[in-house]
């Protein structure tokens, strides 16, 4: 019996010592972000083969579901999509007109640079294991030119940035994570602020200049000032404004443009460096 008690206290002592080690690690990795990045890269590399295989299997099931069972209601969806294509074609024509006009004006102003980006396409192969961190794993890593801090875009807008890069895969912190922040402006009024993550599928816009001019439905785009995200990328739409009273900044909620739960293919921006356009050199 005394031996059992002795064992219990030994375990309690060991647990306490390990807890202190955990506290030290927490403090250390908070100061040295690289440590957490290296740790994530190791786990990422360990999980990569399993993640790739399991996503292929899952993709197969999803494909069967989409091809056969999911066809119920396809006619209705088809009609909606046709209408959407028509609307987008109209919008596209208008945007092409604007782009040409922009080109001409740039030529007039002799602006010799363009914002062409170099990027790498990637597929989502995993999500974060806990409920607290909003992150995804992608199937491209340092061997494909991906590095920490690179911006990641989806088909509809900004997704997040790379926080760890293993040789064959990488971890992307989503814009909805609490530790994420993006310098953004409103497309129309140019009011500026920081879009911070606020949990699953939600962001808040803080430190907003000219907050009075913000309306629900306003589109937020990246300002490019943070040096991470290219300028003019859609971040999200203002979904609600909560006026908390006089003297307190309003709580502006933003719905991300990208459906972060359903995205499959992403684009990692490997270089933000401006590319000189040949025609303008002349």
């Amino acid at each position: 019996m005394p031996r059992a008690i002795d064992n219990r206290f030994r375990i309690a002592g060991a647990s306490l010592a390990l807890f202190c080690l955990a506290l030290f690690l927490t403090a250390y990795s908070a100061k040295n972000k690289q440590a957490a990045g290296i740790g994530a890269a190791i786990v990422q590399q360990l999980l990569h083969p399993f993640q790739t295989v399991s996503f292929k299997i899952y993709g197969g099931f999803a494909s069967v579901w989409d091809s056969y069972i999911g066809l119920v209601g396809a006619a209705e969806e088809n009609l909606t999509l046709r209408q959407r294509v028509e609307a987008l074609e109209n919008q596209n024509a208008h945007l092409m007109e604007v782009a040409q006009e922009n080109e001409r004006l740039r030529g007039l102003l002799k602006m010799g640079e363009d914002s062409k980006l170099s990027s790498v396409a990637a597929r989502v192969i995993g999500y974060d294991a806990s409920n607290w961190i909003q992150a995804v794993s992608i199937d491209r890593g340092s061997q494909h030119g991906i590095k920490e801090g690179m911006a990641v875009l989806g088909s509809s807008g900004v997704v997040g940035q790379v926080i760890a890069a293993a040789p064959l895969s990488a971890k992307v912190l989503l814009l909805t994570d609490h530790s994420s922040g993006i310098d953004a402006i409103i497309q129309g009024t140019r009011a500026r602020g920081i879009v911070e993550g606020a949990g699953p599928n939600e962001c808040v816009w803080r430190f907003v200049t000219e907050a009075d001019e913000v309306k629900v439905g306003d589109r937020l785009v990246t300002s490019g000032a943070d040096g991470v995200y290219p300028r003019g990328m859609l971040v999200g739409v203002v979904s609600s404004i909560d006026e908390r009273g006089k003297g307190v900044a309003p709580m502006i909620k933003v719905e991300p443009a990208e459906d972060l739960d359903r995205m499959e293919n992403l684009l990692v921006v490997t270089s933000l460096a401006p590319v000189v356009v040949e025609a303008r050199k002349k």
Partner: protein
Amino acid sequence: MRRLLLIMFLGLMGLLIQSTLIRGLFPHIVVPNLLMVMCVFLAFYETSVAGACTAFVLGLLLDMCGGIVLGPWAGSFVLVFGAVAFVSQRIFVESPVAIMVTTFVCSIVANIVYSSLAYQVSRSEFSSPEIIALEAVLNALLCPLLFALLRKLLKRRDRQGGGKRYHFART
């Protein structure tokens, strides 16, 4: 030692299931923390210093998977392990209700410890009571199944490896 390595491998598999299958199939739901359940299992059936170290490594794996900060999960897992191991002889582990209640309480404690530690370093809000409660319920519901699976796997390994006979901490 081999048994603990096997548990770590199973922990890695748990991470894989959490991060791919469950999230892929049910993107909008709260995911159960399988590693947390494994930590409670360890506290019942591996009441030793090596068990505490394994709980620490399992927590560290979860931290490394997140990639933001290392240590909060490791700390919370070790605290849960220590507390459960300390009282494990007073808990009837053959009763599913007993282990479900223990896992439920441990999940809530672990999440609160994690939130507190993570808040200290990132100043971010990690305090959604709904998520904590839902995760605890899911963990509690899954634990009888996971405990049975882990017991079966470890018993089989002991029989094959000819190692020491598997024993329960207290029945």
